[in-house]
């Protein structure tokens, strides 16, 4: 009886008025003594911190790339240095007259990455475009064809190195990781054992030691004519490292798929590969999108470790630029600039992963 009455009441009562946005904020910030206290505390921290930051980064900063002396005298940031040295930071020790080549390479890779974000464009043609782009990228960077001056990989540097390492290492590692994950769940003991040993060995080693092995130890064992280029060796090390980690993420997804899915697919007569490709993997990969994205973002930043084996990625070329005696060495500004580039790559990818996740939810 009472429930009856109360439902009737609810229907006849006017809808509660929507609070104004200001009132909502006021309530959130000051509603309780604790909230008010926290608000005051954070306001104090901001007041103490922000003006100094603004002074350093903007009002006292030097923006002109023409006067190193002005930087020396200034108390603020020396953005002029970053502007003057951006070519060197972005392209490393690549011959300055040829910088249009790595620049074009970056444009091609970034453009294709941007295109690959649209599900509408996912097709065989996009894969072909990537394959063609890869050939173009190598031709542009290496030279020696079409009248381009030859530039050995030891002179490559900066953003193109970071982009090539990231895209190729992850592009190869991801399919490889799916193979490893499936192998680790295989019914065939030998296949399972091989995959398990490979994954656990690679996961057990620090990436640094893998890079050292690839670039310092391999030359001790292999004759020169069998030895791939240093850049390729580092790329291989990054790829198998990423593949081992991604494989475990993928395996987690495979394990989350109920056995009934496999049974239903088997009962319909689908072969092993058809079952994996059409039924199991599409579901498993959707589940692990957040974990995959996490691992891939770590791998994007891991490419910076190639500096220990003498490759000039963004960070090494930034350091090299700082060595110019004509300028003060504004390390913070330089690394903020480089950090912003990494952030754009990683955050861009994170947003893409978020989009994929929402898209996967819609179709369920």
């Amino acid at each position, binding site marked *: 009886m009472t429930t009856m009455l109360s439902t009737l009441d609810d229907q006849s009562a006017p809808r509660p008025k929507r609070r104004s946005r200001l009132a909502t904020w006021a309530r959130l910030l000051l509603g309780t003594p604790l909230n008010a206290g926290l608000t005051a505390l954070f306001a104090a921290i901001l007041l103490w911190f922000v003006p100094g930051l603004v002074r350093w980064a903007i009002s006292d900063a030097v923006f002109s790339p023409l006067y190193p002396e002005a930087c020396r005298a200034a108390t603020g940031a020396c953005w002029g240095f970053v502007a003057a040295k951006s070519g060197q930071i972005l392209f490393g020790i690549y011959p300055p007259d040829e910088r249009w080549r790595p620049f074009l390479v970056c444009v091609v890779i970034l453009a294709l990455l941007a295109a690959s974000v649209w599900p509408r464009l996912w097709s065989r043609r996009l894969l072909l475009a990537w394959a063609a782009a890869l050939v173009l990228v190598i031709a542009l960077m290496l030279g020696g064809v079409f009248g381009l001056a030859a530039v050995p990989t030891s002179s490559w540097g900066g953003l193109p190195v970071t982009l090539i390492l990231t895209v190729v290492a992850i592009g190869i590692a991801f399919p490889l990781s799916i193979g490893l994950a499936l192998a680790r769940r295989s019914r065939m003991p030998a296949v399972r054992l091989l995959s398990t040993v490979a994954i656990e060995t690679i996961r057990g080693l620090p990436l640094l030691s893998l890079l050292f092995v690839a670039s310092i130890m391999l030359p001790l064992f292999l004759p020169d004519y069998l030895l791939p280029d240093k850049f390729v060796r580092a790329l291989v090390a990054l790829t198998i490292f990423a593949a081992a980690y991604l494989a475990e993420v993928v395996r987690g997804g495979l394990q989350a798929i109920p056995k009934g899915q496999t049974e239903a697919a*088997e*009962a319909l007569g689908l072969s092993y590969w058809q079952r994996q490709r059409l039924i199991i993997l599409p*579901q498993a990969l959707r589940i692990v999108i957040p974990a995959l994205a996490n691992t891939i973002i770590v791998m994007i930043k891991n490419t910076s470790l190639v500096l220990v084996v003498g490759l000039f990625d963004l960070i090494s070329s930034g350091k090299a630029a700082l060595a110019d005696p004509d300028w003060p060495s504004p390390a913070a500004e330089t690394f903020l600039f480089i950090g912003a580039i990494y952030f754009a790559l990683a955050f861009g990818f994170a947003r893409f992963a978020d989009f994929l996740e929402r898209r996967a939810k819609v179709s369920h």
Partner: protein
Amino acid sequence: MTGVLISAKTRREPPVVEMAGVQKWFGAFHVLQDVDLSVRRGERIVICGPSGSGKSTLIRCINRLEEHQEGQILVDGVELGRDLKQVDAIRRLTGMVFQHFNLFPHLTVLENCVLAPIWVAGLSRHEATERALHYLERVRIPDQAQKYPGQLSGGQQQRVAIARSLCMSPRIMLFDEPTSALDPEMVREVLDTMIALAGDGMTMLVVTHEMGFARQVADRVIFMDGGRIVESNPPDAFFSAPRHERTRRFLQQILH
């Protein structure tokens, strides 16, 4: 030696499913003990029994979701062995409906139905779609074709699962407790679908506790206990005069 186990019956047609001396263990647990079963074309068999009696395992051995360890199983004259080609051939002849439907949640109802016809039977997408819509019509849900399984009720999902199996034009349909996971008000619609299928002459092996369905549809009711076939009779005889004490007790428990 196994050839001797198959009794040479003098019927016009060879049996669709022939099991002889089938043994299976899960570790130390003997799930199927010396099972002999012969199913004629068009025959409708209901298998019942307490849980753990091996009834699900029995029908899952027919399409090789479970592997038997001894004895012989022939489906449409093809022996189930280690040869994967024969397993594939037999799976193409049999359809299976599961307790938990096992629809593919990332595919729409229509995609669920056309998948195997396209990839396994080699139909064109157009042919497969036509066939899928035909069977969705038969299970009375053509208007849900573009929905995802998660948007349907349990009863609708199970009917889609039946349609999905039928799209492969199986000779034999295996049902593994098809109504056990359903809300009571949805059991009817699934049973009606199965009764209609029986009316079309489909060979059916149904593991179920729906005794009303058994009475109405079955040619034979099989009672299993402890991995053995204890009793096998036409429904009239089975329900009115069970021969074994164990069967009597089981019927008392479920037919109160």
